[in-house]
Each structure stands twice: as C-alpha cells, then as structure tokens.
C-alpha cells in the first residue's frame, strides 16, 4: 500500500492535498507540520512519495529535500514540491536538488493527483 | 390522482379541526411539567424542556381568543419548528396523521375580518369534514399584544362555506 507523506505547516492545506489525492487506489497518508517532523516520518515508516511545502517553520523544505537526496535510504523517494506563488525562484534549486515536479499553489487537484499517480507507478 | 400528497398532523381546538405540515412538527407529547414564566404574555403557559432545549408552551385556545379548558388525557403538546424558533403548542387533542391531496386544498375564503387569509394557509374538506390548515409562521410572528380572535374568523369561514353550498334561493 503506497504511503504518501504530506508535509505542510498549514493543516488546511494538508487536508486539501489529501482530498486531492484521495482518489488514488489504496493510498495511505502520513502528515507532518514541520521539516523536522517530515524527516521523522521518513525515518519511522516507509514512504513512497513526498508532497513537500517549502516554507515551513524550523527547517525549510529545501533542506528536507537536500537531506533526502544526500542519503541512500531516501534518495529514491520521488518528491513533489508544492509551494506558494512568489517562491518561483526556488524552482531551479528544487529541481536541481532532485525534486521530481514543482507545482505552485493554488494547484489543480486532478493535476496533482495525476502527477502523484505517475510517480507512484514509475517508482 | 395521487400527485404528491402532503402529510399533515391534525389537531382539535374547540371542535374545529386544524392541520399543520408534519415536517414542521418535531414531536407530540402529553402535557406535563410546564413551568409558568412570570410576566410572560397571557397565552404563554410557561416553559417546557424538549430535547434539552427550553421552549415556550403556547396555549392555542388562549391565543385564539377562546376560553381556557383544563388539561385532560387528550391534551397534547405539539412541538413545532418555525424558522430558528422551536415552540410547543397546547391543543385539545391531536391524534391523526393525514395525507391531504393537493387538489383537496383550496385558498381560505375572503372574510370580513381578513383574519383567515392571514393565519390560514388554506382549507380542505375531506369526508365532509372541514380542516383549517394553519400557517404556523404567521401565528408565531404576531406581536404578543395583538389579539387573535380566530373563533370569529372561523365562524366567518364556516358561514362563507355554507353560503357556497346552499346558495340563497
């Protein structure tokens, strides 16, 4: 059963992301409201896809991304970076750091679901 | 023939049969434990607890300008919802649940007092029985100080109907 980690400091936003991905078959969700919590979730349960917000308290989403790319165990987990309009400059860095896809909020729910499905299937 | 028959609850006050839409009725109870509220309007018998809510119990006889009658085994409290409000109506008896076909309902006749058009949604005659369909929202929205001489209005309605049935020669 694929496990999707949704990391965002806004609980409403996490609910919106989960609602958008609910249609995927058999998925299970893990939630994290900060960068450190996101990494803890990764350490405790197998995760197959990360939907990652950038602007989080404690450590920044890009740090979480770099962290996962540097370590063997997490390197293969695909990451969708989901961030708010205005952070576009971080797109290049996110993509070069190894994010699979970069999406700006407001996002289209079916598009997010489509990307997530593709990434889960190819992974 | 049976296009959407609207369900009604029938009740009696002073030998006249009234109906209210059953969807407006939350429940029907025997009358017990009414706590009088000092300085409330005269037709408010007091408060009752209904599903944890404190609601007024309105004596419809008093409200309609009729004489009060002691409660007996047939007296009922009909809890109705009207907009945001929930109120209890005390009536002589209430037992029937009746579906009235829409074609049996006619607008209230014009009467001298204009009372019937204001407080009745319509009238129905079923098996020679006259049923007055009460507009609960209208009855509840009148100022407590305004007197409601419904008895006279009903007499007017009955007269108007009789006149229709037996046109003067």
């Amino acid at each position, binding site marked *: 059963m694929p496990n999707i980690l949704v990391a965002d*400091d*806004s*609980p*409403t*936003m996490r*609910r*919106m992301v989960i*609602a958008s991905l609910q249609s995927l078959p058999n998925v299970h969700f893990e939630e994290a*409201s900060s960068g*450190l*919590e996101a*990494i*803890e979730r*990764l*350490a*405790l349960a197998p995760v197959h896809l990360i939907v990652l917000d*950038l*602007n989080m*308290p*404690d*450590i*920044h989403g*890009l*740090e979480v991304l*770099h962290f996962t790319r*540097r*370590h*063997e*165990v997490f390197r293969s987990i695909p990451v969708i970076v989901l961030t*708010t*309009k*205005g*952070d576009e*400059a*971080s797109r290049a*860095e996110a993509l070069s750091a190894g994010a699979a896809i970069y999406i700006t*909020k*407001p*996002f289209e*729910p079916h598009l997010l679901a489509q990307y997530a499905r593709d990434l889960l299937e190819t992974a | 023939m049976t296009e959407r028959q609207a369900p009604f609850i029938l009740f009696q006050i002073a030998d006249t049969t009234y109906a209210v839409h059953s969807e407006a009725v939350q429940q029907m109870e025997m009358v*017990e*434990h009414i*706590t009088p*509220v*000092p*300085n*409330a309007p005269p037709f*408010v018998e*007091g*408060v009752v*607890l209904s599903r*944890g*809510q*404190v*609601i*007024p119990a*309105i004596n419809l006889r008093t409200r309609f300008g009729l004489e009060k009658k002691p409660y007996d085994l047939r007296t009922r409290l009909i809890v109705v919802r009207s907009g945001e*409000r*929930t*109120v209890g109506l005390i009536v002589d008896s209430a037992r029937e649940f009746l579906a009235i076909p829409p074609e049996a309902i006619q607008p209230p006749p014009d009467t001298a007092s204009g009372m019937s058009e204001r407080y009745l949604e319509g009238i129905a005659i079923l098996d020679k029985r006259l049923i007055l369909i009460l507009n609960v929202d209208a009855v509840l929205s009148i100022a407590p100080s305004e007197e409601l001489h419904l008895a006279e209005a009903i007499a007017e309605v009955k007269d108007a109907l009789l006149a229709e049935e037996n046109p003067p020669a």
Partner: protein
Amino acid sequence: MTPASTNVFTEFLDDYFAECDEHLTAMRRNLLTLESLAQQERVDVSLLDELFRSLHTIKGLSGMVGLAEAEQLAHLMESILRALRRHQLDLSDEAVDALILGTRTLEQVIATRQTRQPLPDIAPAIKQLEAITGPLPDLPPSPEETPTAATETRLPLPRESGPPAFTLREGERAWLFQFTPARALAERGISVDSIRTRLQEIGQIVHAAPRIQDGGKVTFEFLVTTDADDSTFTPWQEDGLTWAPYEPPPPTPAATGLKAVPTPSIGPPNVVRVDLTRVDDLMQTIGDLVISRARLEDTLTSLARHVPAAQQRQLQEINQALERQLRSLREGVMRLRMVPLGEIFERMKFVVRDLARERRQEINLALSGQETEIDKLVVERMLDPLLHLVRNAVSHGLEPAEERLAQGKPAEGTIALRAATAGDSVIIEIEDDGRGIDRERVAEQARAQGLLDAEAPLDDPTLLDILCTTGFSTRRQADRASGRGVGLDVVKKTVEELGGSLALDTEVGRGTRFTIRLPLTLAIVDALIVSVGGQRFAVPLPSVREVIEARPKDVTVLGNEDEMLSYHGDVLPLIRLAARFGLQEQFERAFYVLVAAHGAKAAGIVVDRILGQREIVVRAISDPLIQVPGIAGATELGDGRPLLIINPAVLIGSRR
C-alpha cells in the same frame, strides 16, 4: 475570482476561516509590536519571520479557495516584509501604516466572504501597499530569507552545517541533545515534536538539524541553552535522548553581528484545534451526567433507612467521589472553551490607535490582565459591547488636549482596560480619565422625559439605568449633554443575557469607569434552590452574598411602601420575588432574604423557603416569548421539570 460553486475546495472553507483567524490574530499582535519598533535600526527578525509566515499561509490558502483579493493583499504585504527582512526597506511609519491597513482590509475581505456579503473595496489598501513596494527592485524571491534559524540575508542555505553562534546568559550552559526517533517511542507519544516542546520548556533551542548516523539511522540534533542542570533531563534517557555539554566555537567577527538578533523560537506550539461544537456536545453529556448523579443522590437519600449504616457510608463515599470527579472533568472540559481576553484587547489597540489619529490626540491605552481567560462564547459576544465602551470612552470621555491642559491634566488621555478573575466571575473594567458624566444635565433630561422623579437623587446605578434606557439614549440632545449613551442599552442587554452585570462610577472632571462582571463559564453553576409561591427557582450562588432568615416584624415599611430590613447596621431594601412575579407568598413564620448586589446597589430578595443547594446546568432561553427581565435561563434537576434561573442583578437594577 473563481466562482465559489466551481471551486472544489469550498468544503474546506470553515477550516480556511479558522486558520486565517489564527494567523490574523497573531499578525495583529506582531504588527503592534512592530509599530512600537518603527524607525529603530534593528528589528527583531523573528517578528518579521512570523508575520511573513502568516501572510504566506494566508496567501496560499486564499489562492486555493479562490479568494483572489485576499491573495493579492497578502502577496503585497509579504513583499514588504521580505524587503524589510533584507534591509532593502526601512521600517518607516508609512510602511507600518500600510501593513496595518493591509491587515485590516485582509480581515474584512475574509470576514465578508465568510458572511457572504459583498467584498469591501481593496483599492485603497492596494494603493497604499504599492506605494511602499513600488520603489523596490523587482524581487527575485529566493529561499534564503525564508524564516529558518537566525540566518541573516545572503547566507547560503544551511546544509548540514554547524550551529550558529549564540550567547549565553548568566548561569546558562549549552547542551547538544540527540534524539533518535523510534516507533516504540512514537507509540508512547514521543516524537521530534514533543521533544522539541520539552526542550523549549527548559531553555532556548539555538539550532536544530537532522543527521544520518553510520547505520543509516536518522537522529535529530538540538543545541539548547539552558540554566537547568542535567539532573532535570536524566530521566529523558528512556525517551531516546542523549546529551553532552557543548563548547561554543570562539566567536568570529561575522557571528558577533548576530548577537543582538534574538533567535526565533523553533516550531509550532503544541496546540490542537477543536471544533467548538464538539466541546459543546461533551459539555452537554457532562450536564446529563451531573443530572444523573443528582438523581442517584436523591435515590440514595430515600434508600437511607433501608440500608445498613456501613454500606450506606460506602455508597455515600462513592457518590462523593463521583461528584468530585465530575467536577474536575467539567472543569477540564470547560478549560478547553476558555480563551484569553488578550485577543480582544489587542483589537482595542487598533480602535484606539485609529481614533487617536482621527482626533489628533495622544491616547495611552493601558492594558492589564490580558491573560485572564473566559469562555469563548462570552468573548465573542462581548467583542462589540467592549468596542462600544472603548469608543465611547475615547470620543465622549476624553477632552481635547487644550482642555485637559487647562484643567491641569496631562495632554495625553488614558484609557485603561483591565481584566481579572474573581472567584467564579471575570471582571472587566473600562476606565477613562476624561470629563466624567455631567450628572445634573442627565438628571434634567431624565426628569423632562419623566424617567426620574423630581426629588429622586441620581446615584450611579440610577444614572446607568437612565443612560441605558433605549428611548433616552437615542436622543441626540441628551447625548450631547451627557456625552454618553448611544447603544449603552445594547451593552447592558448583552451583559445581562450572559448572566452578568454592568456598573458605572463617574466623577465630573475625573473620569468614568464601567465595570462588567461576567460569569467565568456559562454552562454549570452552583445555585440555591428556593421556593416562592409554591414555585421553585434557582439563584446562582456567586450572585448571593448572604442568606438571612427574617420575620415580618423585622421589616420596616417606609411611606412609599418600600420595605427595608436592618442589615449590618445599615438598611437593606427588599424585593419581594412573589410581588415581582405575580405569585402568592407561602411562608409560615419566617421567610428568607437573599442579599445580592448590582454595582454599589445592594438589595435583599425575599423568598419563602430555601430548598437546598445544587449544581445546575444552565440552559439558555432564546425564544422572545419567554425572555423576561430577571430570568437568566432555565435548568432541570433530574425530574424533567424545568426551573427558572433568577438573575438578581437585573431584579435589583430595575428596582423602582
């Protein structure tokens, strides 16, 4: 704007409003702090970070629910904060004003969306915000200024870098903690989040970072400065924590620049948001439990003579334990509903600030007791009345500066807003040091309108009654004369509906004080059960000062038929509940007098009998047909019979 009907995220609107509300509250607080720092060289970076994050979240969420106006406002304000953060912009009065106007407009946009009213005009706010962002270079937003640990601008993003420099205060030490998460720990509720909270409680987290150990295990490193000694954390070994003293590297010149910048606290507070209706459901269940326990007690009492003494004692003990436990359960749930009054006090700052500008007057708003907690429902209902009283105090109470100086007062007027808990009540005071209410002119008006007998003196409670008379207060002439009044009737009504009371003290030339006394919680109170004319009533115990047994011969009847009882060397006017309520008194030799007060006005309420003392569940009376002055609600003691709850303050206040 995306039409709401086509937006798939409309089902999250309630969450959206709730989350925005939290951020807006935090923003108001932070903006006012920011305002006090305007024109200073160094601004607390954490403050800017927090504002930035609030706006960022509001912007993102507003986009999701299709509220483009809010998104646009938040975006512009975010740009200003980013520029401030990068020192591309000075913290000028204009910038702060633009941010405050922006916040207020943002608030209105969200509030009108919530109530489905037409959106306000956002153009003025946009214009003022753009006037600030205008001269900025088009900012290529880059991640480094995003609020992470105390990184100044242009530093590369900290990878698994070492901790930043920090300073130690007297008696503090630095410790490096390592936490290794594990499922077994998570099952016990121990997570990086709870560890972070734990560490924040003992000191300050200077740095936090994830690490990977040789075996591929993830650990978290926290650098903490604290004055706690290591015996505090010895028991934490079992929770996956290890620690060692940390020696800071010698400060480098670059690092010293950071010293003055306070480190942002790390991580969100440990807060769960609960829908208020769920708390209400719980409260309802507890209310039912209280009633069931009362019935149990009644049954035990009636069984008493059939049960052997030893067993009876046991039963009583169990019953008492149950009562205690219910009480603590109830208090616990009630605490969930409590919010600090500080939140609405913060709003008053905005109001006073605006009025001060409008009137070009210096006003000092002195707040105290912001931490006082009260039921959330009460806070919501009290917002408008408090706004009203504060506005009145500024616009009618405070004299213009010249007038003040001429009277030997400081030019700056003071409005004090205080809150405190006193027993089962919360007391809120709104006081100004202005001109006070001209009693003589109010009396004149009141007599002219037949509201006051020619001879009657005008004491403070009577004055308040007159000011709160709807007909009186809306008369413009009276207004000008007294300088008070508009809408006071509404204030009084709201306070009384909440089971509280309003009092007034005023002195010409010295100022005016309104005192609001509200019940701490609404749901359950201890009450005296009394009977009058064969009918039972409940009187909340907090409103009763004393109960006196009296006989008819103790009562002195005055010429105007007012009855008095001598009381502690003074006289106490009596209010016969039976007479007020159209009932027949049914006492034998003696009756009972409940001494209660409304402001400075005390009176004795006469009842036939005291039946006992019980914990009652207060149920509101909402139907207009049964809203009667002096009755605060209804309750039930387990027998299905409703009992009316008396509000003595209203009875006393309306005494003629």
